[in-house]
């Protein structure tokens, strides 16, 4: 039983990582007042381009870097559409998701054709700092990116948002851009920056899947994780630390349902029920936490002076 639980926790950390990265990225965007529905597509493109570059160049890190840069580019595209041109945020975001998905699938088909077995690469190695203590090793044998996500990205996001002038600006342009503008803050620049950082993190989440967790690229690689991340941002009340707990809840139920499926329990319910479990739990968590969610007041509203 202990082994089962330790195993489950270890898996939870792994499964949560891509969603956590994406959710933190979305938190930056929404805190600045932009709902970035390009998240799902940006993750997908990140997963593809990371895989593609790694495969062609033989360098996983180069693949990862290019993936993050692609996310920054799509974040900036979102900024151009919504901040500068004032296009509706829902339309822009969904448009970017469709664009990214189409581009990735097209490039994938060009380069790998219609294979029945998805192409794979030698993925990132897991770190094992406590090799000699079996139970601790089960827990801590993780990818470097998982360590970075939980120990660097989350605390850094919290610190940036609540303890720096940059964070103060992000929060103020998401709450009351008129006030921020009147106080001498460049609302447009802050929103561009938040979307760029956010896009980079989303793509990093996607690349984690193709370069680390799976070591392969498939059409269903993201499978709605971007949408889940958006739910998690709301669950987290736009606070990176609370978003982390949300990601862990989703990751935990995902890891659990995998184990329930493979345990071969003779239950009179179809296995798809287990697949749905993480999503059901997310919805319940969202309903419970979302009731007193306090949205950034300027979310979805373009800012114009006149």
């Amino acid at each position: 039983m202990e082994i089962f639980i330790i195993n489950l926790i270890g898996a939870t950390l792994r499964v949560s990582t891509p969603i956590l990265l994406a959710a933190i990225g979305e938190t930056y965007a929404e805190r600045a007042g932009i709902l970035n529905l390009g998240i799902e597509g940006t993750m997908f493109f990140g997963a593809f381009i990371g895989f593609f570059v790694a495969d062609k160049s033989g360098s996983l890190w180069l693949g990862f870097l290019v993936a993050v840069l692609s996310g920054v580019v799509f974040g900036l595209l979102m900024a151009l559409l919504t901040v500068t041109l004032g296009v509706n945020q829902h339309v822009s975001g969904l448009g970017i998701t469709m664009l990214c998905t189409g581009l990735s699938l097209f490039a994938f088909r060009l380069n790998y054709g219609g294979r029945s077995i998805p192409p794979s690469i030698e993925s990132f190695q897991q770190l094992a700092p406590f090799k000699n203590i079996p139970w601790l090793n089960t827990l801590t044998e993780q990818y470097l990116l998982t360590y970075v996500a939980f120990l660097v990205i989350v605390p850094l996001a919290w610190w940036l948002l609540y303890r720096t002038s940059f964070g103060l600006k992000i929060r103020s342009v998401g709450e009351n851009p008129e006030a921020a503008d009147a106080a001498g803050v460049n609302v447009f620049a802050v929103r561009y920056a938040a979307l760029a950082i956010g896009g980079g993190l989303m793509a990093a989440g996607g690349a984690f899947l193709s370069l680390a967790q799976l070591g392969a690229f498939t059409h269903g690689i993201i499978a709605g994780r971007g949408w889940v991340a958006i739910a998690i941002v709301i669950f987290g009340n736009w606070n990176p630390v609370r978003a982390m707990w949300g990601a862990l809840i989703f990751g935990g139920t995902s890891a659990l349902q995998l184990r329930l499926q493979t345990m071969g329990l003779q239950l009179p319910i179809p296995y798809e029920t287990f697949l749905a479990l993480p999503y059901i739990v997310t919805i319940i968590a969202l309903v419970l936490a979302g009731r007193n969610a306090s949205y950034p007041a300027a979310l979805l509203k373009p800012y114009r002076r006149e």
Partner: protein
Amino acid sequence: MYIVDMLGITKTFGELVANDNVDFQLRKGEIHALLGENGAGKTTLMRILYGLYRPDTGIIKVAEQPVEIHSPKDAIANGIGMVTQHFALVPPLSVAENIVLGNTDGFVVNRAAMEAKVAAAADRFGIVIDPKSLVRHLAVGQRQRVEILKALYRNARVLILDEPTAVLVPQEVDALFETLNRLKADGLSVIFISHKLHEVTQITDRVTVLRDGKLIGTVDTKDMSQSQLAAMMVGRETFGVTRKDEQHEQQPVTLRIDNLCAKNDQGMPALTNVCLEVKAGEILGIAGVGGNGQKELAESLCGVRDCASGSIQLAGKELIGKTPAGFTQAGVGRIPEDRHEGMVGDLTVTENLALEHLNEYTRSGVLDHKAIRTRAEELIHQFQIKARPNDPVRTLSGGNMQKVLLARVLSRNPKAVIVPQPTRGLDVGATDYVRQQLLEQRDRGAAILLISEDLDEILALSDRIAVIYEGEIVGILPAGEATPERLGLLMSGAVKEH
């Protein structure tokens, strides 16, 4: 020496000229009033100075040096601070965070140090405020202090206050004036936007008057009486009132309002013991500077706003406690101030005309489209609406929209009609048409309550004129005795006539 020169400033919004070649000069260490009626262009001029709008033409000098102000950042760099009418604060942030926003010492924000610095600044300028409290927990008066401190914290040498007293209770006004006088003694120059004469004469050294976007003049406050200022501000000469006067003495009172009290959206008292009577076949005009309770009065009389106390009787029947639909059924016709509020823009003219009376066109739960259509065509013809029955209302011009509203309301022959700002934003032709309709309703025997900020309109249409100031009726005059000067004085709160 002037600390600010604004020379030849013109600013247009589409067709509308909000500032027309305006000059404005501010001396160092003075409190300078910018006086004018609503819509005179005061806010626009100051938003230009603060970099929130770009002027079409004109130059700005600070301390006699020409400057380009493209954004508030530039204004702040030139020592200009502004407290806008709607406060520019971020409610979920603390007082200290709001004050340092955009003006932090370094990348890392050290909370304790930030709060200590803000507290020290508050001390220095004699402003009482707790840097730690969240702005959303503060009352309006306190928020204003945060705004003033925010400007001073950025080393403002010029402080612009846009209608700072509009949101304050009298005690808070006194405290604000004390603060301003102290700051003035320290060498700060203050621009005080207002339309309240007694405040202007009380606190300012000089006054610049704007009317319809044009500069009327700049004068020393001590040389001017309130009525002279009122004349500059309202400044209308004779009125072409051509309207047969009738005797209404014998007519019964249709609409009787007794001791009506109501609160505004912020929960502050907006109407205090309003007592009015409107007879059948009479137009009672309510004059007043905007924001003195007109909106709340109109809403209360249509059942849209809950009244704190008092009574509203229509032909002897009490209306308080009824729903808006109940008011309509009892015979109150309401033409909303905001045309868009009264209609659904995406629905057609036909549908909007039927909107308030759908139950009359319903046969066992199904709408009788033929009857609706026939009625709509009649009304379009009768009210000269220039639109086809199936045009969505949002595609209509303002004048035609107003006609749709008039048709819907007036075709029911209401006993009383409440019309706030019926011609605002309409062109001359449409304005005449609307006024003609109101006069016809009067001749039919309806009691009409006309609320308008346009003195011409009030004087042209009303049989009697009541003036509202800070939610109170400060005087009621027969049309024959009303002059612009007398009304102007009442409107500015300088005198009361009962």
